[in-house]
């Protein structure tokens, strides 16, 4: 009696599962809020497709994709050639939204937004620009009375796409940073204190007088934090917001494989410390239902999905990138 009941339950379970297409994805934590919103909304429109996304970090996403345990990955940093070579099938990159990283600080007696040149930021994080009233900072902030206090540098201690974007910008603008440190999710910091997560950096900066750190734009907006303007490639000091980040994405020359860094972009309204985040999708998907579901999901995310980004403080993709991506979707076999 009990056995037959169990068998019945099993049959019911299998039946309910077979009508559904399950997609599993894993990777970056930065886009997790928008992805979970998207996948939830998409499920409402397509009740037969269930998408499960785990924010285990970009590195983990790439590894899981390589191991074949997920249907798609997600990363805040495009995969390099070596990583692509290790994958069993070719992997396509699809930018989904853009984000930015902003300098945040706590300087005694300074209430207004400060201007930072790339040289000043590189110098501070290299440990060469040591004091707040150093000429590198003072020159960009005429009329601001900066204290002579020592700058306490705060950076992320955990491996993070935020750190990648920040160090990528410093590498592009400072040859010295490029040769001494380089860019990556974890680097060998020449100076400063490490704190875990955006909240760790923000907490330490808030508490430590005369400190300077960097956090994601979204985190800064949500927590009403003061953050500085950064000088872009056109020489203008730009405050990061959703439109200046989208402007950076629109100004960048995007190659056919979408593996591109958009830091220090050319446009005159472009915020210079911005980046895409990518979905990583294998170019061959054997299961026809899964393939169809992924293609539908991508098209939807690039269309109606883009309208949901602002509410969660992500910068939408510019139209030139969207149309280029819509064409590239046909590469999924």
């Amino acid at each position, binding site marked *: 009696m009990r*056995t037959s009941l169990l068998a019945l339950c099993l049959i019911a379970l299998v039946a309910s599962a077979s009508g559904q297409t399950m997609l599993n994805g894993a990777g970056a934590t930065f886009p997790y809020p928008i992805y979970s919103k998207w996948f939830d909304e998409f499920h409402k429109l397509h009740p037969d497709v269930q998408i499960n996304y785990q924010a285990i970090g970009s590195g983990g996403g790439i590894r899981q994709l390589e191991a074949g345990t997920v249907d798609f990955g997600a990363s805040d940093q495009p995969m390099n050639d070596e990583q692509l070579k290790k994958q069993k099938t070719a992997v396509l990159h699809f930018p989904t939204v853009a984000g930015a990283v902003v300098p945040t600080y706590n300087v005694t007696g300074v209430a207004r937004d400060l201007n930072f040149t790339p040289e000043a930021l590189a110098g501070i994080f290299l440990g060469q620009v040591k004091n707040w009233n150093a000429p590198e900072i003072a020159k960009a902030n005429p009329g601001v009375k900066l204290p002579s206090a020592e700058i306490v540098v705060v950076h992320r*201690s*955990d*491996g993070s796409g935020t750190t990648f974007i920040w160090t990528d910008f410093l590498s592009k603008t400072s040859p010295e940073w490029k040769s001494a440190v380089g860019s990556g999710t*974890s680097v060998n*910091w020449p100076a400063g204190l490490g704190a875990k997560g955006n909240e760790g950096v923000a907490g330490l900066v808030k*508490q*430590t007088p005369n400190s300077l750190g960097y956090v994601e734009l979204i985190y800064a907006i949500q927590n009403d934090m003061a953050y500085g303007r950064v000088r872009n490639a056109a020489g203008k000091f730009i405050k990061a917001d959703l439109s200046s980040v989208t402007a950076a994405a629109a100004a960048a020359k995007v190659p056919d494989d979408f593996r591109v860094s958009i830091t220090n972009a050319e446009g005159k309204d472009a915020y210079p410390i911005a980046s895409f985040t990518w979905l990583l999708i294998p170019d061959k998907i054997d299961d026809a239902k899964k393939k169809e579901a992924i293609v539908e999901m991508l098209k939807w995310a690039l269309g109606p999905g883009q309208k949901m980004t602002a509410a969660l403080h992500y910068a939408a993709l510019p139209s030139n990138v969207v149309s280029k991506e819509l064409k590239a979707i046909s590469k999924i076999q």
Partner: protein
Amino acid sequence: MAAPTAGLAGGAAGWVRALIGRLKTGDAAAHTAAAMFAAIIPVATVLLVTELWNRSALARHKFGFSFFTGQVWDPIAGQFGALPFIYGTVITSLVALLIAVPLGLGAAIFLAEMAPPRISDALTFVIELLAAVPSVIFGLLGIFVLVPFMREVAQPFLMKTLGYLPLFSGPNYGVGVLTASVVLAIMLLPFIVSISREALLAVPRDQREAALAVGSTRWEAVSKVVVPYARLGIISSVFLALARALGETMAVTMVIGNNPKISASLLAPGYSIASVIANEFTEATDDLHLSALIELGLVLFLLTIVFNGLARLMVLATTRRGTAHP
């Protein structure tokens, strides 16, 4: 499909019934079962070590012994040395013990020997509650309460009075090795207090009475008779606490400053093995980086073995010296 399943289930049920029958009557089955459970511990340990060993192959071959002496940790350049992390782990644990052992032992003596039983029980309950607090809570308390206190009050005081010693020469960020040690010390206290208290309470009454009978004061009886008698329990509480300190991750990483430099000053930021693994593991996309992090896990395992070995030696040495022991 249903029939063989039922047969299998019936067979299994029969087997289980037979086993229970044998367990009720014979010792043999009980011995086997107990031995199997006991075997899980060494098997799990061996599996853990082989896994760590195999997965760290890339880093072990590339760096060899220099992994232990290298001071540079550069994931971009692919250069990995563990010394700053080993140093940070050992120094925070030892300083934490230096703070927690006198405090914890004093509290245990008070609770076991001096406090009225009802107060003792109530206080012990509160202290044991401390052990159940998740470490991230200690980390948060560290960031919001201890770090400002260290920066505004404790560290300036230390630098002013003892600043001539390299140990207290600054810099004063609030976060750093000393702050991490203080947070750890608070986390270790419940282990030391509750186990030491049990050990003290287990000392037979006649030991105390004998000491008092030959004319010693109450404090002399405690310090010269009861504590030495209970020293095995006290030592094991200290080493249990040490093991906890070596592996503590979250609370340490939140207040240590996460900077892999070896500095003479306790106020300077540092880094620990467990912290760097937790910090960098999820985003380690490079194989060598991942392999180096796994080798760090192996190093942490080695460290705990070394400290546990020392504990054994210490226990042996104290028991061999004779006098009273349980």
